[in-house]
């Protein structure tokens, strides 16, 4: 029984890590007022870039770095179109999804089914890892897991406890007032979208380097859309994103575990989306955005000098 529990917990953390990374990225993007629906595409691009570079260089760390870079590059398209050209962010995000998924398939074509020559060794924290039960789960994980924890806490500190955080949130809430305080709205938004892209790319690399250790088409499997849901579920708060990501990750794992005992996986598969709708609905009942903490100007392009 213990071993099943450990295995479930372990797999939950592995399944939750890419969700967490990408959600952190979407949180900072949306906090600055830009909606990026293209996560699925950015993750796919990151997954392929990470896999190819790891294969070519033999270094998963270089793979991770190039996945981040690839995510940043492709998110720059969305940044340009939605910030500089003030285009519709929904349409641009969908275009990014298509481009990312398609491009990843195209460039990943020769690598389908090839095994990863090197594995990223789990990072074993001495002493702590020897604690029974918890030790194995929490202190003997892959580096992505620890990085995502650190990044999550860092992002939370950045957003809620620093000047930059105040500036990012202000730009998302009221760009006109922020501009009157001497901020450059476009710069802040560009930086946030690019960071979001980098984190989504990193999430993709986790999928190809840790989770499946190979590249297949459709590797992202709709996780990008779950991330959109998670961002709302977490109410744009990085700490709550931990909870959401592991909860949704756990649902992934349970789908397979509970199937043999007669619980259809599709019923569980609906849960993340229904939960998000429920959160939205609860917010709607209490009259909206103030309760939900959604950035007030999310998705609205800003033109200098306009109110």
């Amino acid at each position, binding site marked *: 029984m213990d071993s099943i529990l450990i295995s479930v917990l372990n797999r939950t953390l592995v399944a939750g890590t890419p969700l967490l990374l990408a959600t952190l990225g979407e949180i900072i993007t949306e906090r600055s007022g830009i*909606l990026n*629906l293209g996560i699925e*595409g950015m993750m796919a691009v990151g997954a392929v870039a990470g896999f190819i570079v790891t294969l070519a260089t033999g270094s998963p760390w270089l793979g991770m770095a190039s996945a981040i870079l690839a995510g940043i590059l492709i998110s720059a*398209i969305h940044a340009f*179109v939605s910030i500089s*050209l*003030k*285009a*519709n962010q*929904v*349409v*641009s995000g*969908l*275009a*990014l*999804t*298509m*481009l*990312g*998924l*398609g*491009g*990843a*398939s*195209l*460039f*990943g*074509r020769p690598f*389908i089914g090839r095994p990863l020559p090197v594995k990223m060794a789990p990072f074993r924290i001495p002493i702590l890892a020897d604690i029974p039960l918890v030790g194995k789960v929490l202190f003997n994980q892959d580096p992505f897991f620890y990085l995502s924890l650190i990044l999550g806490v860092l992002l939370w500190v950045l957003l809620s406890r620093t000047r930059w955080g105040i500036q990012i949130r202000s730009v998302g809430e009221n760009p006109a007032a922020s501009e009157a305080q001497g901020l450059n709205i476009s710069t802040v938004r560009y930086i946030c979208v690019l960071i979001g892209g980098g984190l989504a790319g990193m999430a993709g690399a986790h999928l190809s380097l840790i989770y499946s250790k190979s590249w297949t*088409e*459709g590797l992202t499997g*709709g996780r990008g*859309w779950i991330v*959109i*849901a998670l961002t*709302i579920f977490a109410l744009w708060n990085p700490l709550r994103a931990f909870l959401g990501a592991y909860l949704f990750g756990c649902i992934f794992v349970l789908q397979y575990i509970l199937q043999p005992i007669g619980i*259809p996986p*599709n*019923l569980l*598969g*609906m849960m*993340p*989306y*229904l939960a*998000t*709708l429920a959160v*939205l*609905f609860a*917010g*709607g*009942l209490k*009259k*909206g955005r103030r309760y939900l903490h959604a950035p007030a100007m999310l*998705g609205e392009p800003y033109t200098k000098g306009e109110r």
Partner: protein
Amino acid sequence: MKLRIRIDHRIDASPSLQVTVLLFSLLAGLFTVGMVFAASRVNPFLALWKIFSGSFGSLYGIKETITKAIPLILIGSGLALAFRARFWNIGAESQLLMGAICATWIGLNWGPRLPGPIIIPAMFLAGFLGGALWAMFPALLKVKFGINEVISTLMLNYVAAELLTLLIVGPWKGVTQQGFPYTDDFPASATLPLLYGSRIHYTTLIIAVFACVLLFMLIYSTKFGYELRVIGENIEAARYAGIDFMRNTVIMMLISGGMAGIAGVGEVAGIHHHLTYPQAISSGYGFTAIIVAWLAKLNPIAAIASGLFFAGILVGGDAIQISLGLPAATVQVFNGILLFFLIMGDFFLNNRVILSLERKE
């Protein structure tokens, strides 16, 4: 010397400018697609040629293109209506699935007992209602509780897909399908006739074209269409003019979702003849139709042409999958890049960009 970029709002874009910008966007998009092909070591000319010859270059290709255009035209014109009212319905995928589910229920339960002329209209009606009612949820959530429709329609896509899968692996699983997760095949009376030698279920095609004309009239010559356009362009003016936002939005989404529902009926009754995996019923038609509507400039009649165009890309994509061994998702590159260039084109339609060199002070 310093390069200065000035952006002025363009007051009026002439029709000839609109056409020029559209053509230029498409060309620039194709060029970029070619670059991406070249970068992934695929001969871009060969690939583009194969896409063209695979879709519009042969009789088989044309037949397939028309087949795939049917759902795109239906959904695209319905989305044009929704986008006119600035309602971002990105849940057409799930509305299609709900249409398919409802039609299947009718087909399997009543098909054996009733003749075709009764069962086929009943299936279309049920499909329309299925899509419409599923689309009504996000509309109500928006007008009653102010819930963003982008998120709610997106979430419902997945709920519907899981629901459908639940049905075909569970209660509706066919006894004659050798363990495959499909429902039983529809009786002959519940399947749509096909154009000879093709997969074109012309009943749905006729409905699609007819619906486009109706929607065009609805948008441009009825009170309802006028009110929708006022809501979409200036919600405050709509309030001032005494236009009922709730009623109009809900009716609009019933129509928009219903169109997608009809597309779902066509797919199950015309092509598959049973309910199957969500991915098999719709290869992303609900999303591709968003570009269809966008390219058509939210004009339902133009959606016929742009639906054919993107159907051609889908079919051409299948062709290069076989002839060049490219993955199925390659066609998404095409869609994504074209969509980006279309929205960039809009920027140049709405703004005048003036570049000038200026001496530094």
